[in-house]
């Protein structure tokens, strides 16, 4: 009995070592030490170009930029600093807080000298998983497959002085204790429209709210779904699908998801809007330019356009919320999406938000607003 356990451990260890040595894992080929390696067909799964792209992406996943850069073709090659900025982000953009969590490869075409692989990147970010699609061109360079990665067009803001003199609202707390003289009223914000639709087996409540006041408001919209017996069957808030800080006369869309409540079971909806007076700034102003509904590389309908930061301050993280209306002006959908690059002053940055195919056909009009987060203000 004394011998059985050590022997068993020894046998299992040897078995695992042998198994590890025999199976050519992708991890074994990638990472750091793979710099400059000519790729052979030892990896599992897919064609050689696909396997090479896999290794490249594993390096990106580990933020091993030197390792990943070694897999780039020499033709039209991006410089390493730009390559790292494009994939790793900078200036506290959402990408700097992201990690490549997984990817899908779909070969589009291939021959002996080059191939094209549609790559779906899935980035794990603080605001959820973000997917992006890129068609990677892969070429055979001196018997080694390499990725063609052209120089990215990154924002290069010239040195300049941008005068900023927008309003700022501060709150002054009243120090007196006299009853009836304790402060100012909260802002007056009104829900101006509401619509409830079924979506993917659940329910979605959406609409718009308007700050009717002359002061900024922090806004949150809550909804309670009441069942046919009059009892609540769901209660949710708009969470991040709303412009939380609303300036005077500003309109925000809101969307509240109830993924587990079938709309057929809902008898009525109780809406509740919570508002608080908050300090705020009218700066930065972000323009939403050249918006249009289009089809993306994988055939989805998207609303795309460009964000233009018209102030002199970098916006680190921006969040686009789009409202879609039918011909009667009724809100039929609210979509949102984060932009993973920072917004530089006076420099356009592209965005796109998905539009469900059922909505794309009936959307007659749309309106886009932008939430922004600036590190300097926090």
């Amino acid at each position: 009995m004394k011998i059985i356990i050590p022997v068993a451990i020894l046998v299992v260890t040897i078995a695992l070592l042998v198994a590890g040595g025999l199976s050519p894992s992708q991890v074994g080929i990638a990472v750091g030490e793979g710099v400059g390696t000519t790729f052979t067909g030892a990896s599992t799964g897919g064609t050689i170009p696909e396997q090479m792209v896999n290794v490249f992406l594993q390096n990106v996943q580990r933020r091993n930029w030197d390792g990943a850069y070694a897999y780039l073709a020499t033709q039209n090659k991006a410089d390493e600093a730009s390559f790292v900025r494009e994939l790793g982000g900078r200036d506290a953009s959402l990408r700097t807080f992201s990690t490549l969590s997984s990817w899908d490869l779909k070969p589009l075409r291939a021959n002996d000298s080059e191939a094209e692989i549609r790559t779906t990147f899935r980035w794990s970010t603080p605001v959820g998983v973000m997917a992006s699609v890129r068609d990677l061109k892969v070429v055979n360079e001196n018997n080694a497959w390499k990725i063609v990665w052209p120089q990215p067009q990154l924002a290069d803001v010239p040195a300049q002085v941008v005068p900023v003199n927008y309003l700022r609202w501060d709150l002054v707390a009243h120090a007196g204790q006299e009853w009836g003289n304790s402060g100012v009223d909260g802002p007056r914000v009104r829900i101006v429209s509401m619509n409830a639709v079924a979506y993917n087996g659940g329910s979605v409540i959406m609409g718009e709210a308007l700050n009717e006041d002359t002061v900024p408001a922090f806004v949150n919209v809550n909804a309670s779904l009441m069942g046919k017996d009059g009892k609540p069957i769901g209660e949710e808030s708009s969470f991040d699908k709303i412009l939380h800080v609303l300036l005077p006369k500003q309109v925000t869309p809101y969307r509240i998801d109830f993924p587990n409540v079938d709309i057929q079971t809902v008898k009525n909806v109780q809406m509740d809007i919570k508002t608080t007076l908050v300090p705020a700034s009218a700066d930065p102003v972000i323009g939403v330019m050249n918006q249009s509904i289009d089809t993306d590389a994988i055939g989805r309908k998207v609303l795309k356009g460009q964000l233009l930061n018209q102030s002199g301050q970098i916006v680190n993280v921006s969040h686009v919320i789009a409202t879609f209306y039918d011909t009667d002006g009724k809100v039929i959908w609210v979509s949102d999406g984060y932009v993973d690059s920072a917004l530089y002053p006076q420099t356009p940055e592209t965005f796109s938000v998905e539009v469900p195919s059922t909505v794309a056909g009936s959307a007659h009009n749309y309106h886009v607003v932008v939430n922004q987060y600036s590190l300097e203000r926090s």
Partner: protein
Amino acid sequence: MRARLILAALLGFLLANRCFGQELTPPRQAIAGNPLSFSTTGSGSATFYLFGPGSAVKQDVHLGQSIEVRAEDVVTAGRYTAIVCSDTCHAEHFFVAAGAPASMSFLAHPSRAMVKQNDSISGVAFPFDKYENLILSPVNVNFEMTANKNSLFSRAIPTRQGVAWFRTNSGNTAGLVLLSASVNGISTQRALQLVASDPCNLRIKAQQTAKGVLVETEPIHDCAGNIVPDGTIVTFTANSGAGRSTVDAPIKQGVARANLTPAGSTTISAASGVVMGNELRMDVRR
């Protein structure tokens, strides 16, 4: 026979109680913070108890003499109970009323109101005596609303059950408004902000620049002629062959402006809240 004996004993007891028992008479009018005097009948020593909303007092007294209660023992208005006990106890209830107005709580609502709104401003006043007792008897409260030392509203309103209130329209001119409530020379003031209403007759103009199209509004006023506060958002929208461009721009010094980047035949419009402005059509060459 037994019934006659019981009846005689009862009559004797009632007569003795009438002739020799204690009786307590509270003051007809008791004011909080004033000393009280109770008259008693009977003879001999007794114990006097007084308890009410804010105090409890116990005194040794002599029946047939008046009982004096100090002012500081009855500073809280309300229902009191006085009891005098010798062989038996006798209780009386009475009310202590609030004294003369000495302070006032004044609640004005809202702290911000749009101009030209009916019944949008209200005020409620509660007069108190110097011991913070709510004065329930009717008192005339003078309400006044002034802007730039001009009186917009003035009215004397009697309290009902300790409360006086009014409701009035907001004025036509944006700015600071002072609301005051006064009673017996005591005055309390609150400041309200009258703010401009929704923009009226929102009009825009545009000119082509090197960067695109600069769109700006004319000075924005409400329908009463008040300038709409800076920071109010105006949404500019341009529809052109390049797609749609929108900018939420805040008003600055009475005017909102934005740079748009349309191309070709373009329609530009503006809106602030639920108010729409005019539309411009232009051919933008870049």
